[in-house]
């Protein structure tokens, strides 16, 4: 059965990594629901957060193939309950539509949205939350004339206690010790 997974992928900051990752997803016919890229808490390490829908068997295979890439440091796969996550959305709505009565005030208050800019022609609202919350707000705004709507990919923080730099340190030690003791055959 397909379900939603969030892949947190830590990589070296090299050109072409994203391409290598999408090649793996494309071969397995997995659609990317959302993707974000940024520098992680560790300097020089990039974090890609990719949301996909697939089966749990397939996500394991795909994660192993991603981790196999030379420039990938570590891949974590999480279900939604294992992470704290948010998306951000911006809405541009006609001022005329919204200004009749208390509508705008109610909407902003009920949805914990923010007004970023007001002009005679349009109002820009910002909403941070889960995908469903953003979709809810969008459907509420639609009758008043949504001129533009843009939504970010997911950003996520894991609930797990062991952080990346601990993994990095472990990997580092394991390899350094062994590089000294074992001569590479071939």
């Amino acid at each position, binding site marked *: 059965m397909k379900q939603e997974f969030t892949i947190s992928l830590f990589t*070296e900051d090299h050109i*072409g990594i994203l391409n290598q990752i999408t090649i793996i997803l494309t071969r397995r016919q997995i659609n990317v629901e959302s993707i974000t890229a940024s520098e992680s808490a560790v300097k020089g390490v990039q974090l890609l957060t990719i949301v996909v829908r697939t089966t749990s068997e397939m996500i394991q295979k795909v994660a192993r193939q991603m981790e196999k890439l*030379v420039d990938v*440091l570590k891949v974590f796969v999480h279900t939604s309950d294992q992470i704290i996550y948010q998306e951000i959305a911006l809405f541009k709505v006609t001022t005329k539509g919204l200004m009749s009565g208390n509508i705008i005030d109610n909407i902003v208050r009920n949805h914990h949205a923010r007004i970023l800019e007001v002009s005679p022609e349009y109002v820009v609202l910002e909403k941070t939350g889960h995908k469903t919350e953003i979709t809810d707000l969008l459907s509420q705004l639609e009758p008043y004339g949504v001129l533009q709507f843009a939504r970010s990919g997911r950003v996520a923080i894991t609930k797990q206690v062991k952080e990346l730099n601990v993994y990095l340190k472990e990997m580092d030690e394991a390899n350094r010790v062994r590089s000294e003791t074992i001569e*590479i*055959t*071939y």
Partner: protein
Amino acid sequence: MKIEKETEHAIVHVNGQEQITGAEALLQCLLEEGVDTIFGYPGGAIMPVYDKLLDFTGRLNHYLTRHEQGAAHAAQAYSMVTGKPGICFATSGPGATNLVTGIANAFLDSVPVVFITAQVTSGLIGTDAFQETDIIGVSMPVTKWNCQVKKPQDIPDTIAKAFYIAKTGRPGPVLIDITKDAQLEKLCFKYKKCDYIRSYNPLIPLHIKAIESAAIMINHAEKPLILAGHGVLLSRAEKELKAFAEKTGIPVASTLMGLSAFPSDHRLFTGMLGMHGNYGPNLLTNEADLIIAIGMRFDDRVTGNLKKYAKKATIIHIEIDEAEINKNVLVDVEINNDAKEVLKYLIPLVKENSFEKWIREFRICDKTEYEKVIKEETKPEEGDIKMGEVVKLVSDLTKGEAIIVTDVGQNQMYAARYYKFSNPNSLVTSGGMGTMGFGLPAGIGAKVGRPDKPVIAFLGDGGFQMTIQELGTILQYKVPLKIIILNNNYLGMVRQWQDMFFDKRYASTELVNPDFVMIAKAFGIPGKKVVMRKELKTALDEMMAAKGPYLLDVIVEKEGNVFPMVEPGSSVSEVRLTY
């Protein structure tokens, strides 16, 4: 800044430090890595490297093939027989794209080859300049790692990294794309071999617990079977495999790529797995209660229908590439380590044992296969020459000591089935990709790598013509390769499938062939055409006695089919002996 010039090598010193061009640095790097042989093809963008190559004559031997694909296959075969990474050069654009089949072939069969391509001057990248291709993008899905170098000072570290990645862990091809300006500009050369990359960890600590549970399973199994793959050869674990099998008494079956890792005439060897493998190991995979898979990846050609594969068996998978574990077959014990290290640790933990009754089941299958297939294939009394008997004769003649190279198709299956391999790394074939045209250039690479061994290439008349121009390489470098064409005037394997699954509708599989002996002659290669059975032995003797290259065009049965066969979609236990 103090600059002085030496006349002889035009070496410039900057502040007392030697400055050389990127092109020279590249060649120096290769020497540092112990390289002495390169296969390649020049062109505009790579000219600075080729120019410098002249100054390295005697230290770096360059073989000019007749097509970049040939260079790629030759470099791969060289690696397969020497255990050293193969090196292959090509220019930008078409030179680079012509490599792609060869790169993909090395990738699927996990062979370390370092591909060096040239790129247009860095300022022109992205402008669709003359002979510009995004070879980094193109080769990304078929390389273990690739990288573009635009600055000369980045060359040494990148090459060091490339060698380290190519040959460690699960080996594979890497590609370095060097811009023309980086080849021409100068750097202060310093080389340090790479032995560590933060994001890449080929040395995985031994999974002791998993090995210990594997040992318990092995000690309690009643019908265990070892499946040996290419990984055994790549990790050089042949001795350990032999010791492990002999101590435990467990029978060994091999994948196509694993052939020659275990002696073919060993009492515990049961033959080849897979679509055209032997009857016993296919049939009895589904009877085994324990499967110990070593350095193999459960390819679909090996497993047949996965839903009906090895259902009675507990499966132990020893595999260096974690992504291969649980990919096709769900396993019970995963040991994600190097085969040699695992076997070394495992051998003392297993008890001495023997499985005579179980092995007898294989021998009964062997007898059936002999009666129904092998006898007629290897000792026919009348009719046209059969591919099997040619291979069998060569096997007897060389006592299994030769290096066998194959093309792809029926010739490959017959060579794999009927040659009795005595030494490790003595089969060079295109397994995962199934690349027609692989055989002839691979034969050249194998012979260049092992001049001390007889190297015999079995080719089909179809595959031979895909890379036939490499006869020119044989001519130029006097490569004493023995070529045997198993000529049935058909694309035999495709025809077999048309015969079996497409109502004998032979669509575009019949070939009208030229006179191969005459073609060989034009390339200075002596040869002979053999039609009659009684001429075959003498012709083979003559071929083996010839000092230089030799081509034997053996006219074989036109519509012979390879059996046994596990039909696509069938279970391995439904392996068919006849049709």
